């Protein structure tokens, strides 16, 4: 962890304590007489003893190991399930943007250390996204809000209850007319019930929702199409032809993990006739677009008209005249896509993205209906959200009420509306008019700053709850640890506002579900235990709505898409989302898909547009293409508002458009996230929350350093990623190996390794990888990989053991994009092993290239000689050895590395050994699939497979026997154990290779 060293290690709870003024001391002596001495006296008894101890140690008694100062207490009676050293797994769920993902959380002696997907959860199937992987660090973040406070003073929970009850009592006669609740998107049935209860007690009170990550337009599209809120779910396993309209359905959004898996399962070229075809019309290049067989870059405003033309060709609506005048190139696309969709009636699918307006969503619904896809590749259910509303309208109304002085008590349950509210809704100003403001949040953020009461929010690993997944499946959110900083959940805050103020979150959730099932206590208890164990409530998925007949065909040209000039598109950041993860070092340092930027957002545009604006980015000598990119700062002026950001040109981005990511420019995120990037919310208005036209971009002449881990995306004819078309592949699969030579196996000085027991290997399917980065964060969490900070990334020293390389093929206006996850190859002829002077990296008899940290003296020769550059060196003491909360989150099975040693991927040797111990106890070989590496486990696309190559029946052996299998840089005779499966693109002959 990089934490500002000057402020590091010394934590203060209030501004007063920091200032250390006399009134604070006085108050302290009144409240905590016993602690006064410890805080005020520079040389307390404890310090004296410490000094004594230190001098004894210096005198040579013993100073070799640092013993913790705290006393330890052994278990007198060991809990039944708890065996030290054996982790336990608990099912729980994490919600983002109103959709939950089921998780299994690894717990070591009561400390959650690693998050995996819950295989029983339909939205996960065992996979996770980066946010779930990084949630562990969020839990232990030392910058989280730690105390309940009123105007900065610490208050007990009881004082808050008293206050809120008094405020509510005062509202009783008014029926709660001055009470407002502001939540994010609610997908917790129990929470919704609690709010409804409160609203029934105070009929004049209002519940508002604002979530910058919510899917504003999808709801509007459903209203337009069906007259009611409905959720569309896609059956990608049934879809042969898919059209994505600016939809990153694989990389983000509800069900993304599930869709990625279903999609990847239909990309196996060996299974004739099963391979699907994806068309993507999109603006900012996304993981989904890069997996598309045909991708057409279009400005966000152009996507609707082109979609309408496709629809018209399908007989849905009528194409407007203006669009018909489009170039012949687009016409060719329209015709080809429409023909392909027509040819696959019932097995095609049109998906509209969250950034496209409601009209496009309605159009997609209409197209799916006309193609006979409804009920086959797309099904409709009641919404997963407990109470879907137009959230922009919702926050607008709330702001108006506050501005009018009608709000006496505002309770903000989660979220950071002061930071995230649309720029033209003066939420922060209006907030000032509210008599009592309560903010429940994990950080003392921008909103907390303006609220009277700040309640530290419990992390989802600390509190009970419930949540619906993308298909409605309910999971009970189980805590794994008592709140570290006395946090409260939204359930508990709402309980405080009810008749039963001290009711625990557990009781609230359990009673809610007991009432739902109608079962009696003992019977329910059995059910409840089952639910907790499985992580899902069986049969709770929302049923398919078959009677969605009243499908209006949307008017052909109602959308006000007169977007002129340079366009601007707003996107949630792939790493920090809407800004809520800004203080998470793992996510900040994660190279974002496509751009490979870390620690910053940027003004992203196409190379041509950047050239037009006369701005550019160029690698500096510090770190170069693998470190520092010096970019020109442009000023974006949009509707009388302006922000400044660094330009970053991305191949495949449409011309005449800039994309900015939200979530940066935080002022009060914490020590990690403060001041990173620029705040794109400052430009985002309520009427155009996803894109708009007429932005002016002017070069300021200033420069900015962007930390980018990969700036060079061309393969230089080296064939790192091998890609062929399906047609070529079907003709002769050996086409994959054309032009690549592998030296004969006899070509080595040394005797071959034998590998009599296990022979570990990995196969990575480049065709499946969507570049989502889940493997990177999964690996970081599993292997205690430190965060190095922006300065070190600028110098090319990030520590990730697995990276996702992305390569382009074709022109810069619309290239093919390929992702290639690169962990250690565990070469059989490892170049690193020969050159290490002390034998710190050695070949194991099972084929692992072991790294012996204790033995490493740090010559870095191994890294120089590694052609894959997967080795990482601790140039500084990157690991935070001191912050206590971070120690809790580490994996106890993995060494925490110190300064001056080399490290790299181990194939998760700790997992191998743990499985080996289990199998040896049972006197058997390790079964295939028993060991999953952290990257493999996180991967939603199932692109990474690990196993025993000596077992001919193993999945990895089967994959490596496939014709698509190839070794990276095979010509070097390193004989990598990690191999790749070539990408195969399923081209539409009508469009040819012209993308």
């Amino acid at each position, binding site marked *: 962890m990089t934490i500002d060293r000057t402020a590091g290690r010394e934590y203060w709870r209030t501004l007063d304590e920091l200032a250390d003024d006399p009134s604070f001391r006085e108050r302290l002596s009144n409240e905590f007489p016993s602690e006064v001495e410890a805080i005020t006296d520079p040389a307390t008894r404890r310090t004296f003893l410490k000094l004594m101890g230190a001098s004894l140690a210096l005198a040579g008694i013993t100073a070799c190991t640092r013993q913790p100062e705290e006393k330890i207490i052994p278990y007198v009676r060991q809990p039944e399930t708890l065996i030290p050293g054996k982790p336990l797994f608990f099912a729980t769920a994490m919600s983002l943007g109103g959709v939950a993902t089921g998780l299994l959380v690894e717990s070591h002696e009561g400390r959650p250390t690693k998050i995996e997907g819950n295989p029983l959860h339909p939205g996960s199937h065992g996979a996770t996204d980066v946010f779930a992987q990084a949630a562990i660090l969020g839990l232990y973040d030392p910058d989280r809000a730690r105390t309940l406070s009123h105007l900065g003073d610490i208050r007990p929970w009881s004082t808050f209850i008293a206050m809120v009850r008094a405020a509510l009592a005062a509202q009783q006669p008014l029926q709660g007319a001055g009470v407002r609740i502001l939540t994010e998107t609610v997908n917790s049935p129990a929470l919704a019930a609690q709010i409804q209860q409160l609203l029934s007690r105070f009929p004049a009170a209002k519940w508002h929702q604002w979530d910058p990550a919510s899917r504003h337009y999808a709801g509007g599209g459903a209203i337009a199409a069906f007259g009611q809120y409905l959720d569309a779910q896609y059956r990608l396993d049934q879809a042969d032809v898919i059209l994505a309209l600016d939809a990153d359905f694989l990389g983000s959004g509800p069900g993304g993990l599930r869709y990625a898996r279903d999609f990847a399962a239909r990309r196996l070229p060996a299974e004739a006739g099963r391979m699907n075809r994806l068309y993507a019309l999109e603006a900012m290049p996304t993981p989904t677009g890069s997996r598309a067989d045909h991708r057409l870059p279009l400005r966000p405003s152009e996507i609707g008209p082109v979609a309408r033309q496709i629809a018209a060709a399908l007989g849905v609506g009528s194409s407007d005249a203006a669009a018909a005048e489009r170039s012949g190139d687009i016409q060719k696309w329209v015709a080809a896509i429409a023909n392909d969709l027509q040819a696959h009636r019932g097995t095609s699918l049109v998906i509209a993205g969250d950034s496209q307006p409601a009209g496009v969503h309605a159009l997609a619904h209409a197209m799916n209906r006309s193609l006979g896809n409804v009920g086959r590749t797309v099904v409709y259910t009641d919404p997963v959200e407990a109470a879907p509303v137009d959230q922009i309208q919702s926050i607008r109304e709330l702001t108006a009420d506050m501005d009018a002085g009608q709000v006496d008590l505002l309770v903000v349950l989660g979220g950071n509306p002061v930071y995230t509210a649309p720029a033209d809704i003066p939420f922060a100003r209006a907030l000032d008019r509210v008599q009592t403001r309560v903010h429940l949040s994990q950080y003392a953020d921008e909103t907390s700053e303006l609220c009277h009461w700040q309640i530290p929010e419990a992390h989802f690993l600390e509190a009970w709850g419930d949540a619906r997944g993308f298909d409605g499946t309910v999971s009970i959110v189980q805590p794994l640890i008592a709140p570290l900083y006395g946090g409260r959940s939204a359930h508990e805050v709402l309980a405080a506002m009810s008749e039963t103020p001290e009711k625990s979150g557990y009781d609230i959730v359990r009673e809610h579900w007991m009432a739902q099932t109608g079962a009696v206590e003992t019977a329910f208890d059995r059910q409840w235990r089952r639910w907790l164990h499985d992580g899902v409530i069986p049969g709770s998925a929302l049923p398919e709505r078959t009677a969605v007949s009243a499908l209006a065909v949307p008017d052909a040209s109602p959308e006000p898409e007169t977007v002129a000039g340079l366009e601007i598109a707003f996107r949630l950041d792939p790493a920090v989302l809407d800004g809520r993860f800004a203080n998470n070092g793992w996510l900040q340092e994660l190279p974002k898909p496509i751009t490979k930027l870390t620690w910053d957002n940027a003004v992203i545009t196409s190379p041509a547009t950047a050239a037009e604006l006369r701005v550019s980015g160029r690698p500096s000598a*510090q*770190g170069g293409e693998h470190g520092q990119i010096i970019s020109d700062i442009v000023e974006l002026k949009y509707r009388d508002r302006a922000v400044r950001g660094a330009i970053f040109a991305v191949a495949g981005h449409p011309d005449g458009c800039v994309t900015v990511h939200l979530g940066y420019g935080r002022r009060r995120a914490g020590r990690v996230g403060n001041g990173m990037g620029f705040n794109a919310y400052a430009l985002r208005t309520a009427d155009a929350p996803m894109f708009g036209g007429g932005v002016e971009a002017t070069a300021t002449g200033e420069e900015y350093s962007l930390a980018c881990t990969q700036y*060079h995306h061309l393969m230089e004819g080296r064939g790192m990623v091998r890609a062929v078309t399906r047609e070529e592949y079907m003709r002769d699969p050996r086409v994959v190996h054309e032009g690549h030579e592998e030296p004969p196996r006899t070509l080595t000085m040394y005797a071959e390794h034998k590998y009599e027991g296990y022979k570990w290997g990995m196969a990575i399917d480049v065709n499946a990888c969507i570049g989502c980065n889940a493997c990177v964060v999964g690996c970081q969490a599993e292997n205690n990989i430190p965060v190095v900070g922006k300065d070190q990334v600028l110098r090319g020293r990030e520590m990730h053991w697995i990276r996702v390389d992305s390569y382009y093929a074709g022109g810069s206006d619309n290239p093919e994009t390929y992702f290639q996850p690169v962990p250690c190859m565990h070469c059989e002829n490892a170049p690193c092993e020969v050159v290490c002077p002390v034998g710190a990296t050695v070949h194991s008899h099972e084929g692992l290239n072991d790294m012996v940290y204790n033995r*490493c*003296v740090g010559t*870095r020769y191994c890294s120089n000689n590694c052609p894959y550059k997967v080795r990482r060196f*601790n140039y500084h003491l990157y690991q935070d050895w001191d912050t206590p909360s971070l120690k809790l989150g580490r994996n106890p099975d993995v060494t925490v590395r110190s300064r001056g040693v080399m490290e790299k991927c181990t194939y998760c040797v700790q997992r191998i050994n743990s499985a080996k111990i289990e199998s040896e106890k049972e006197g058997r070989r390790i079964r295939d699939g028993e060991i999953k590496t952290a990257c493999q486990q996180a991967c939603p696309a199932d692109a990474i497979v690990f196993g025993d190559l000596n077992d001919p029946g193993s999945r990895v052996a089967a994959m490596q026997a496939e014709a698509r299998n190839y070794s990276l*840089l095979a010509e070097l005779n390193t004989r990598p154990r990690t191999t790749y499966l070539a990408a195969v693109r399923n081209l539409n002959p009508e469009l040819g290779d012209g993308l």
Partner: protein
Amino acid sequence: MDNPMPLEERQLTGAGSGVPVIAPGHTFGSVTDKISAIVLTRRTPIGWYLGFMTAAALTGLLLVSLSYLVVEGIGIWGNNIPVAWAFDITNFVWWIGIGHAGTLISAILLLLRQTWRTSINRFAEAMTLCAVACAGIFPLFHTGRPWLAYWLLPYPNTMGIWPQFRSPLVWDVFAVSTYATVSLLFWFVGLVPDLATLRDRSQSRTGRIIYGALALGWRGSAMHWHRYETAYLLLAGIATPLVVSVHTVVSFDFAVAIVPGWHTTIFPPYFVAGAIYSGFAMVLTLSIPIRAIYGLQDFITLRHLENMAKVMLVTGLIVAYGYTVEAFIAWYGGNAYEGFMIWNRITGPYAPAYWALLLCNVIIPQILWFKSVRTNVIVLFVLSLVVNVGMWLERFIIIVTSLHRDFLPSSWGMYQPTFWDWSTYLGTIGLFLMLLFLFVRFLPLISIFEMRTLLPEAKGEQ
């Protein structure tokens, strides 16, 4: 010239050369007086104090840099992934290379009976030792955990682990430590008769004690001289292969690796030639000011300078051949990575350094074909500096440009030196100069007794 040079001496010093290796008019006494006076009687010039203080200050900078390095880590340098070696190993190879001239002059030229070497061999050897001391700092301190660097030594230990003998870094340890030991012995043995001279002539008691102890009881008996000659010749025999072996082994650090630009069989001869090239350049850099300051033009004559310039010309051409063959094979071999590597050197981000290297090492030194240049002290001095810079650039180019863009374009990066990279490098230059200043002040910088053998008197006695 009053008396024509005896025939034997002309044969000894190389036929056809007009300038003698020692100016006429000297006697045994005047040689001894002149050289020993620098140490014993002459006032130490103010320039010595200024130079020494500057060098000592730079050495202080080295100490600060190394202390900070140990406290904070290699991260204070600009090294990264992919460029995990940069200034550290560049400087190591550069210093080791510089040392080579000393051994070559003292050992090989002795065996080849090139007596002109006599007046430069002493401080060339001292220069070797100082350069090796500077070189040794880098492999030690460039490790991530220098306090464990002794694990590279093969010593019996409770862990039962030996070094990994396939690694060229282990070979380096042997090569460099052997080299340092033999060079030290060779230099010291050669000093013994002169130390005795200083002992006998020293005015101060301290001087007599110290020089006396160091002279190991030398009395100049025939037996002593006999033993001395045998030992010196033996050491020369031992040192001779080291001239070739040390830089060969150093080049293995690169040649054994698979990195394009490193993995090449031409490295051993090319490195050895480069080492001698840079070594002679450094001897020139040092000897030209020293002979001017101490008025030693009589002993270090234009003849010496010209001979050294000739050696530089030859080794420079060998190095140029190396560059050419490297580029030719990259093209002829048809290996895409090699081809790219050369192309990247020529046109990539470090191209200015590459062209500067060719200018310094290949183009400018061609002026040495002209005798007027070889005998022009000022031009030679400037040229020697140019070659020193060129040879440093050569190592930088080999190390950094090969690493910064190797196999996978996704990992391409760049390296930029930080303040601490420079301070460590300058610090070692300071250490080098400081040690040399001490040497010049306290030891005879030219071999007194060997110079005496060059005099006509010595020939006459034969």
